[in-house]
């Protein structure tokens, strides 16, 4: 081996350390980038070629084998599911915690209004001819109607707010789906031309993480470097380089709340995705909207309808101060649909409280409270669910409370699990600046030493030249 070759080999080896410094620098720069996996410049001995004498090989230094990503596939698979679950339960928990209409100590609650209404009936029962007490009954009936109105309004407002959230989430999902399809194409191209597109893989991983969070999608890699994206129900959002999309569509059967619809790329008929086919934030929000809040809203509607109907039926049988009967206390509702929203005091009774049907017969006299006692009896009347109004509202509150409580617990558990997995992933793939500083210093020392080799070999060459 000649001295010139030594200089050449040392020079070639320098490039490996330059690559290591560059990789460390890239790692440090991306230390906080979401989805970034630490890269490593792998050095390997250069194949020796020249032999001196018969049995000695002189090495030719070091060369760069490649720059690879460090990922733990075991953790990566689990983290996708954790992202889906955690985003789903957190979205439900956030959406449900904002509904304050059923708070036990809320002012203007149905509970208080129910108590006040029957108290006013009792007051009137003691002196049914008193106009002031009659007015109090009418006002307390109005308050009861208003309590139903505001409670259901708070619930339906929360459901509408969820619709708006869904609309913006679906837009984001479509953007990510398109970007995954595009990245699939670029990554496949790079891999087919023999390169490893580490940074493109990172960007795609970050998009896949977000898709798991938003809609619970899971990645299904193929053999060519592409990743298909599949919804929990099996619907394929991205197939290789072909993206499909999601759409929002109002559902008239569900008070115009929106459905999430799958629109295939090939223009085939869009299909409505039901709750079990979606996950992540979108699935969580749909579950909060249609399960927990939907059930609360319809229970409240049923309660408002059945209670007002029962009170009206009894009220119609009584007689007003002027001896007339068949008056309603609340406006007649056609059915449970939107009953809590539409419940209101009958305008005739509101205008003239003497129409409150206290008496048991037409000529009963102003002191007759026979029908009032029966009206007070509706307090303990069992409605269609076998519970009276007070028990019905208590059940509605506990059903809602239990759902929120369960979701909150699940959200806390899922968040902890996700934190653990994120830590595990970070431990495997994350950048430690300390590590990188050490690697930088290590590469720097090697680089310095190699330059010394060049200087020394050069001096040897000079010495040789001087002899000549």
């Amino acid at each position, binding site marked *: 081996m000649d001295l010139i070759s030594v200089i050449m080999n040392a020079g070639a080896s320098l490039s490996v350390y330059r690559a290591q410094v560059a990789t460390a620098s890239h790692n440090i720069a991306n230390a906080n980038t979401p989805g970034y996996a630490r890269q490593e410049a792998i050095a390997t001995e250069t194949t020796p070629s020249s032999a001196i004498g018969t049995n000695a090989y002189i090495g030719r230094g070091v060369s760069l084998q490649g720059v690879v990503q460090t990922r733990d596939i075991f953790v990566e698979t689990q983290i996708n599911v954790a992202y889906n679950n955690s985003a789903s339960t957190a979205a439900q928990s956030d959406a449900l915690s904002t509904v304050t209409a059923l708070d*036990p100590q809320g002012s203007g609650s149905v509970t208080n209004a129910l108590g006040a209404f029957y108290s006013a009936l009792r007051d009137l*029962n003691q002196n049914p001819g008193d106009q002031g007490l009659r007015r109090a009954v009418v006002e307390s009936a109005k308050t009861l109607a208003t309590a139903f109105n505001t409670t259901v309004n708070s619930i339906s407002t929360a459901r509408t707010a969820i619709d708006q959230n869904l609309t913006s989430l679906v837009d984001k999902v479509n953007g990510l789906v398109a970007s995954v399809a595009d990245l699939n194409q670029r990554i496949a191209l790079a891999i087919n031309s023999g390169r490893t597109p580490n940074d493109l893989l990172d960007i795609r991983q970050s998009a896949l993480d977000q898709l798991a969070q938003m809609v619970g999608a899971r990645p299904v890699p193929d053999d060519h470097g592409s990743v298909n994206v599949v919804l929990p129900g099996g619907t394929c959002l991205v197939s290789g380089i072909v993206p499909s999309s999601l759409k929002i569509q109002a559902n008239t059967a569900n008070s115009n709340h929106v459905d999430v619809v799958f629109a295939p790329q090939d223009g085939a008929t869009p299909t409505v995705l039901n709750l079990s086919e979606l996950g992540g934030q979108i699935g969580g929000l749909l579950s909060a909207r249609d399960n927990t809040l939907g059930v609360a809203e319809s229970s409240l509607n049923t309660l408002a309808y059945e209670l007002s109907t029962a009170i009206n039926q009894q009220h119609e049988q009584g007689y007003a101060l002027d001896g007339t009967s068949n008056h309603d206390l609340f406006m007649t509702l056609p059915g449970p649909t939107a009953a809590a929203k539409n419940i209101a005091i009958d305008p005739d009774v509101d205008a003239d409280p003497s129409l409150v049907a206290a008496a048991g017969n037409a000529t009963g*006299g102003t*002191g007759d409270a026979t029908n009032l006692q029966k009206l007070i009896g509706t307090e303990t009347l069992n409605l269609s669910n076998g519970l009276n109004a*007070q028990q019905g*509202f208590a059940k509605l509150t506990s059903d809602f409370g239990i759902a929120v409580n369960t*979701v909150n617990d699940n959200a806390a558990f899922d968040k902890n699990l996700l934190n653990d997995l994120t830590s595990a992933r970070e431990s495997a793939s994350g950048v*430690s600046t300390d590590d990188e500083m050490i690697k930088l210093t290590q590469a720097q020392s090697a680089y310095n030493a190699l330059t010394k080799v060049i200087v020394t070999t050069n001096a040897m060459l000079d010495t040789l030249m001087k002899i000549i």
Partner: protein
Amino acid sequence: MRVTEKMIFESTINQTGKSRENLARAQEQVASGSRVLHPGDDPVAASLSVGHTVDKARYTAIGQTAQRAADELNAADTALDGITAVANRALEIATQFGNDSYGPTDRATAAVEVNGIYQQALSLLNSTYGGRYIFGGFKDNAAPFAADGSFVGDSNTREVEVAPGLYQAASLNADTIVKGGTSGVDLLQTMTDLSTSLQQNDANGIRAGLSNLNLCINQLAAGRTIAGMAQDQFQSAVSTAQDATADEKVKIGTLLDADILDASTRLASAQYALSATLSATAKTLSMSLADKLG
């Protein structure tokens, strides 16, 4: 385990977030005095509190109406007391002027007094309480006794709740107590008859009224007994309802109120935990090899 700076940052964010959440929650409980602010905080307590809140309103209303019924019965009793005094005076007059030693002039003078106390009885029978005629039965918006002593009220008894769903008579039947009903004696008619007998100087007629007046006084006494018993029942209903209201209040408090001592302790410990988390974070974040390398 390999630990990176990002892990430290993220766990810092999680831990301070948790500490702050605990702190906010403890603060909210101390400030509001409530343990259950949302049904999700304690579904069972939230649900039970609905029943207790309605029950509390119910017992409060029963207590108030029972008190009003007792007050009204008290007014009725006072009126009956006055009417009994009138009946006793009529009895005295009948006893005195039934004696044959009195002549037509004396008896005519006595008849004037009887007419006077008759009017007094009539006015007591038409007493109102809170604007309603207490002896009118259901017809409580007009005077139940006409000037000629006829009863124009009805025989219905007004009822007020003493316990949920349990009603107790809260008015007296004047047609039985005063008018004698089907088998008793009519006080007003007896007094009119007495007055007529006195005017006509009919000694036998005057004496005949004596037994009827005694019967009337007994009838009135029976009426007052009924009023007294009903009043007692309402008074005991008032105190039962007040106890029940207080009891429901305690139950609601137990379910929903925060234990202030416990909440304050948790507030202090949450503050301490947050402060410790922040100090530990500050120390961890200040350690990096980059700072040490020259």
